[in-house]
């Protein structure tokens, strides 16, 4: 037998692609190395391990007396407040998002730049830091959960309206044309064809945003905008690790339950 048959044919090589891949790889490594420069890794506190251990043992030996004591400052009431902030914030943002979504969706306009401008506005709203927004609302309505609700309500518009507008862009034209053919006005088109077809996507996206809002609401307290974040930052500052433990545990359980419920509803919708 011919011995050359035993060898596999060589892999075809695309030089151009290979060079491009190597260049990208080298650029990535350069960026990573550059990132390591100038950051002081030696500045870690000597007690780091000890504190990490304390927090860990706090999670396993939580301060159970904090769970519920009827004062309104306990874990259950703070978590409940967090959920309410997220709920109301999401509700407000869903209402504000609808007109923005129609603005940013590229199917509804005569001029191409109308939707482009809408998309840019949404990108700016998305990038405006939530915490700064919360602080501005604290100036306006005073510290407390109302500021958190308003901050969430406005900040979420950036993401939610983007998801909504994508849902609008994915709609089929058929039902709209049918309503127009039957003599319906623009209002009829929205009432009887666009909205009913859009509803499942709107609800599903809003529920998804609610999941995200729950996480946001639990950190807004760090700046004094209500919710569970405030007692957490206080407990961290006063080094009450068992309390930090129970609060973390509470947040984790709350997020898991909410995720689970909203996932279950979304599955039923589809």
């Amino acid at each position, binding site marked *: 037998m011919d011995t050359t048959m035993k060898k596999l044919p060589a892999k075809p090589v695309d030089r151009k692609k290979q060079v491009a891949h190597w260049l990208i790889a080298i650029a990535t490594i350069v*960026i*990573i190395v*550059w*990132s*390591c420069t*100038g*950051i*002081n*890794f030696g*500045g*870690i*506190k000597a007690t*780091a391990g000890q*504190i*990490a251990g304390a*927090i860990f043992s706090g999670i396993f030996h939580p301060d159970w007396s904090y769970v519920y004591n009827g004062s309104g400052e306990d874990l259950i009431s703070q978590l*409940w*407040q967090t*959920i*309410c*902030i997220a*709920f*109301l914030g999401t*509700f407000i943002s869903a209402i504000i998002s609808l007109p923005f979504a129609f603005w940013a969706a590229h199917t509804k306009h005569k001029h191409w730049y109308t939707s482009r401008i809408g998309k840019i506005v949404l*990108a*700016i709203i998305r*990038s*405006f*830091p*939530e*915490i*700064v927004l919360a602080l*501005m*609302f604290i*100036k*306006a*309505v005073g510290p*407390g*959960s*109302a500021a*958190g*609700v*308003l901050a969430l309500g406005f900040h979420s518009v950036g993401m939610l309206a983007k998801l909504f507008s994508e849902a609008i862009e994915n709609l089929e034209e058929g039902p709209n044309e049918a309503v127009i053919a039957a003599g319906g006005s623009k209002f009829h088109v929205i009432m009887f064809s666009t909205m009913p077809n859009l509803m499942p996507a709107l609800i599903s996206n809003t529920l998804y945003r609610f999941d995200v809002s729950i*996480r946001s609401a*639990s*950190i807004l307290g*760090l700046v004094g905008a*209500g919710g569970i*974040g405030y007692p*957490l*930052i206080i407990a*961290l500052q006063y*080094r009450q690790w068992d309390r*930090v433990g129970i609060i*973390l545990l509470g*947040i*984790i359980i709350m*997020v*898991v339950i909410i*995720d689970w419920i909203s996932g279950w509803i979304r599955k039923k919708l589809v």
Partner: protein
Amino acid sequence: MPEQVNQLPKRKFKVMNLVWTIIMIAGLFISINVTNTHISVLFENWNQFADIFIQMSHPDWSYLNVVWPKLIETIKMAVLGTVIGSVVAFIYSLLIARNIVKNKAVTGVLRVIMNIVRTIPDLLLGAIFVAIVGIGPVAGILALAVFTFGVVVKLFYEAIETIDPGPIEALTAVGANKLQIIHYAVMPQIITYFISYVLYAFEINVRASTVLGYIGAGGIGLNLQQTLQVFNYAQTGTIIIVIIVVVVLIDYVSSKSREALMK
């Protein structure tokens, strides 16, 4: 022709829709009550709110010199956080993919840990790491690394579980060990997805890293906190504009490269 034909069939009345509506309205009232939100207060104090906006819209450009090095530090934090988190997530995702590790007990326990890590929000991680390692960018990098891990590990392992089992079987048949299977059968099928997910995580991290400094975890957020504390909204405006420009720019570049990758 009978007359009923001209009429549309009546819409079916769904009880569940009514129940959901009632739940929503009840939730609305309860949450307004609990959070004590009155929109009227916002309108009463609208001037104060608008005033901050007006001051912010006259940014103090001389402040850019101070912001610039902090911005670089922020991006460095985002890069390092993404890299560390993705490397750990890569190894972890191989351990929890059921088509690679057959032991259901191991994958099950590791998945529960993953799901717990995924629930903790980014700033909360930042606050905890500031308490552990002290104020500075290292706390931010660690927080971002854990956060990145939570974001990408799920995407990673789901990508691994959906690969074509053929190459794995072929390599098992010729007697390859686990590392060889991963290198020759798994990696070629998932590497583009991985890069795309890492870029996606980087986008999120840039966004997150800009506020981490607010709680002392390094980066541009520190300046945000300082200027807000002394009510210097012109300087705050400068920072916010810089943040928006950087975030939008990196989002754009990253999403374009992800599109190019998936082609």
